[in-house]
């Protein structure tokens, strides 16, 4: 096991964490501002990936595909918010879980209806394919580096948006006191739709970017959705900073765990058994991490109170 190999795994973990952040940011915003648990967030991720694959396949341009992913996911998010989600804000979490679970069924089966059961393939654009040499002799795929860059850029943009702009001010005010900002003349319904569409667009972007690494298929959003929930629970629900820290923590833990645990058990076990035990434990590792965080801090790392 060399330092280069470990460095590569760290970069993989970073890339994974950044993707999780794009998902978790929308979830945590929607929960923080509207108090809504949205299980259908994974479906918006899927919508983004399918839109990107369809448009990129038709036009041959990955950039057009990405724009389509953003637009389709934001539009789907806004539509769902206006038609369904809006009726759920005042309900308890049980109704929200159930209604958004119903939305997943509709989105997943609807997508299967339109695109069929076979996965679509989305290839890395030629300009971004291939590997680059990083200092220290690390050879790393350019595309994954670009993903890390996009993700960190969006994280920065989001912090700026929430912390420095008028919209961000309204979002934070909506989190703190809904009635008060409505009384001050902010159209709260429109604000909620915008926040929801923003979260949806981020999820769609994540779906499109990951779609080139994995295959684009129905149900691809659900594992990511659950990881995104783990992320926001670890970070503290409603906190963007928590989502970023949680996402990087989960991405690193998962990637390094899958890499180091089998190797670690290999020190005192036979290889076949070590890889079985190691990978079984590694797949549980992030949930163990989450349980540990919650036992120590029941409201997450950056949750209030």
């Amino acid at each position: 096991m060399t330092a280069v190999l470990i460095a590569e795994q760290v970069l993989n973990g970073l890339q994974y964490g950044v993707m999780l952040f794009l998902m978790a940011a929308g979830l945590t915003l929607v929960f923080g501002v509207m108090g809504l648990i949205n299980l259908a967030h994974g479906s918006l991720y899927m919508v983004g990936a399918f839109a990107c694959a369809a448009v990129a396949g038709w036009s041959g341009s990955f950039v057009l595909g990405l724009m389509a992913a953003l637009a389709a996911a934001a539009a789907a998010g806004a539509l769902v918010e206006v038609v369904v989600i809006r009726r759920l804000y005042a309900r308890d979490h049980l109704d929200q879980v159930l209604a958004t679970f119903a939305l997943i069924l509709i989105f997943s089966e609807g997508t299967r209806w339109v695109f069929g059961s076979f996965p679509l393939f989305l290839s890395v654009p030629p300009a971004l394919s291939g590997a680059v040499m990083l200092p220290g002799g690390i050879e790393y795929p350019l595309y994954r580096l670009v993903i890390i860059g996009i993700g960190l850029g969006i994280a920065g943009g989001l912090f700026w948006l929430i912390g420095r702009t008028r919209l961000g001010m309204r979002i934070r005010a909506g989190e703190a006191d809904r009635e008060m900002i409505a009384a001050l003349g902010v159209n709260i319904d429109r604000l909620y739709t915008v926040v929801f569409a923003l979260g949806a667009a981020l999820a769609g972007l994540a779906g499109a970017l990951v779609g080139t690494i994995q295959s684009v298929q129905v149900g691809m959003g659900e594992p990511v959705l659950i990881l995104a929930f783990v992320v926001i629970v670890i970070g503290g629900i409603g906190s963007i900073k928590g989502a970023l820290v949680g996402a990087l923590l989960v991405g690193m833990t998962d990637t390094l765990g899958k890499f180091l645990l089998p190797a670690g058990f290999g020190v005192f076990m036979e290889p076949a058994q070590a890889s079985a035990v190691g990978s079984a434990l590694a797949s549980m590792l992030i949930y163990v991490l989450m349980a540990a965080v919650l036992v120590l801090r029941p409201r997450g790392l950056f949750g209030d109170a």
Partner: protein
Amino acid sequence: MREGWINAVILALLAAVPLAAWALDEPFVITLATKVAIFALAGVGLNFVLGFGGLVSFGHAAFFGLGGYAAGILASHAANYEPLMSWPFVLEGSQQMLVIWPVAIGVSALAALVIGALSLRTRGVYFIMVTLAFAQMLYYFAISWPSYGGEDGLSFYVRNGFLGVNTFDPLSFFTICCGLLLMALGLTDVLRRSRFGLALEAARQNPQRLLSVGIRPYGVQLVAFVISGALTGLAGALYADLNRFVSPNMLSWHTSGEIMIFVILGGVARLWGPVAGAGLYILLEHQLGGISDYWQVYLGLLLLVVVIFARGGVIGVLARKQDHD
């Protein structure tokens, strides 16, 4: 209509449909009814914490799956004549339901004790997510642990035995499942009316007040969670026997969602709600599945309508203007 009458109608349907199917020689319908009874039992377990205790557990698939794996592992060891463990003492597998059930109940109760003890430290949305995460943890463990089939699941070829009854006969197996369901309904009804049930109800409505009369909500809720997990685990063992197959799917979050659907579709915190919900779900699955391969779209739409417009589920709508109970 009074809720009592509705319950009586549900019970009559549950008994009459398989008998009619038996008379008409339609074993498939009896199997469907068995599925209803088993799902209803899982729902009764969840309803105990979700309905009466107000604790939204999104991880009951963990107990359903553990019960199923308990049955599958015991049965497959017995079928291969391999002891489960040979050190420090020999532990044999078993194909007797009377052995399997206590093991399934014990394993899932133990898991519920651990999961509940940790999860109940959190509230509201955190509780939902933590229970979900624990179930996912077991799901991924089952997928990546190769000894018992891993991702492919574990099949066993003979349905486990129950005293001298021929359990392969659909009607006999239905009777066993239905009997257990009725016992579980009776148990939850007795518990609900007991001192313990009142404390659980109070812990949902006003934990501070419960604390001030000298009862810690945590303990009450933990015991309820264990009972709930045990009932759902028993349902899992029966489900494994129905299919003679267990797979990580039983542990997946879709299963948790489905068990929740049974409860909500029927009516939260209604004793017979899960039975009505499971019956309706299976009926829809069967009917809509005949109309379109994409029947889950319709199921999703229907579920949305129920959540948004028909609060209180089927029993709630039928028993309109009646209080719970």
